[in-house]
C-alpha cells in the first residue's frame, strides 16, 4: 500500500530564521497591518510503500530522524495519509 507522508521542518524558536525575518520586515514596511511575525520553513512530501499506516509512520519517522531534520536547529512534525 502507498502512503503519502508529509514532513514539516521548522527552525526552533530560539534560532534566528533570517529568511522569515526579512519577509516579515519587508511586509511590515509595506503596511500589511496586523502581521506580527513570519518564519519560513520546509515542507517535504515522501511517498511510502508500507503494509499499514503504523509502519508508514515509523518508516517516515526513521527517515526524518536520520536525515530530514537536524535537532540542533530544527523541529519536525510528520503525518501520513493513505493514497
Amino acid at each position, binding site marked *: 500500500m502507498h502512503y503519502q507522508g508529509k514532513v514539516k521542518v521548522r*527552525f526552533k524558536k530560539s*534560532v*534566528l530564521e533570517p*529568511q522569515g525575518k*526579512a519577509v516579515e520586515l519587508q511586509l511590515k514596511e509595506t503596511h500589511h497591518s496586523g502581521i506580527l511575525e513570519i518564519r519560513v520553513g520546509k515542507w517535504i512530501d515522501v511517498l511510502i510503500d508500507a503494509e499499514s499506516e503504523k509502519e508508514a509512520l515509523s518508516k517516515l519517522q526513521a527517515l526524518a530522524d*536520520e*536525515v530530514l531534520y*537536524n535537532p*540542533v*536547529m530544527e523541529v519536525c512534525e510528520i503525518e501520513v495519509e493513505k493514497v
Partner: protein
Amino acid sequence: MNSNNAKARNLRAGVLYFPGTNCERDLVHALENIYGIKTELLWHTESFQTEHDLYFVPGGFSYGDYLRSGALAARSISMRSLKEAAQQGRMIVGICNGFQILTEAGLLPGALVRNEKLKHVCRWVGLEAAGKWAAHIDKPFQLPVSHSEGNYIAPEETIRELVNEGRILCKYSENVNGSTENIAGITDRSGRILGLMPHPERALEPTNDFTYTKNTPGRYFFDTLLGMV
C-alpha cells in the same frame, strides 16, 4: 618547507570529496606541493582503508547544499569510513562546507546556520586562535572566508563546554556572520577532530596574500596541525 618536516615523516593524507565539493584541489596542492605529504582523493561512493595519518573534508557546496548544508554528504558511504578513522583517533579537519559536514555527521557538536545578515560573506577576516590553539598561534592573523552558512549555534551547555574545555579553535576579531561567541572553528573533546569556516589552504602562497606582506598565514594553521599529527 615547514619545520615539522612532514615529508621526512612520510605522512599520508586523505581528502574526501563529494558532488559539488570545490576546494579539494587546493588542499591537494597545499599538502603535496607545499608540505610534501602524499595525498589521496577519496570519492563519496567508496569506503576506504583508514590508513592515512590525517583526513580533510574540504569546502564547496556538496550536493548543492540541498536539504541543509552538509546534510547529504554527512550520510555518504565514505563518511562511514571517516567515522571509523575518528574512532581510531586519526586527525580530521573539516574546512567550510567540511565543517558543516562534520557537524551534520555528529563528529562535531552544534550546527552552522544562515549568516545573520543573509549575505554570502567572501573576504579576508581577522582571526585569533583560542582555547588550546592559542598556545600555538599567539598573534592575530587573517584568512579568507567564503560562506553563506557560517553562523555557529549550539545549545548553551555545549557552548559552555567548548569555552571551558578550550575547544574553540579560533574566533573572528569581527563577527562577520552572527556566530555565537564569534566562533570560527572548534575541536571535539580529543582535540583531533577540527572544524573551521576560514580557508587556510587558500592562504599558503605568497601570491594568495591580499595584504601583500607575503605572510602566508595559512601556514600558522597547517604548521600547528602537522605538529599534532
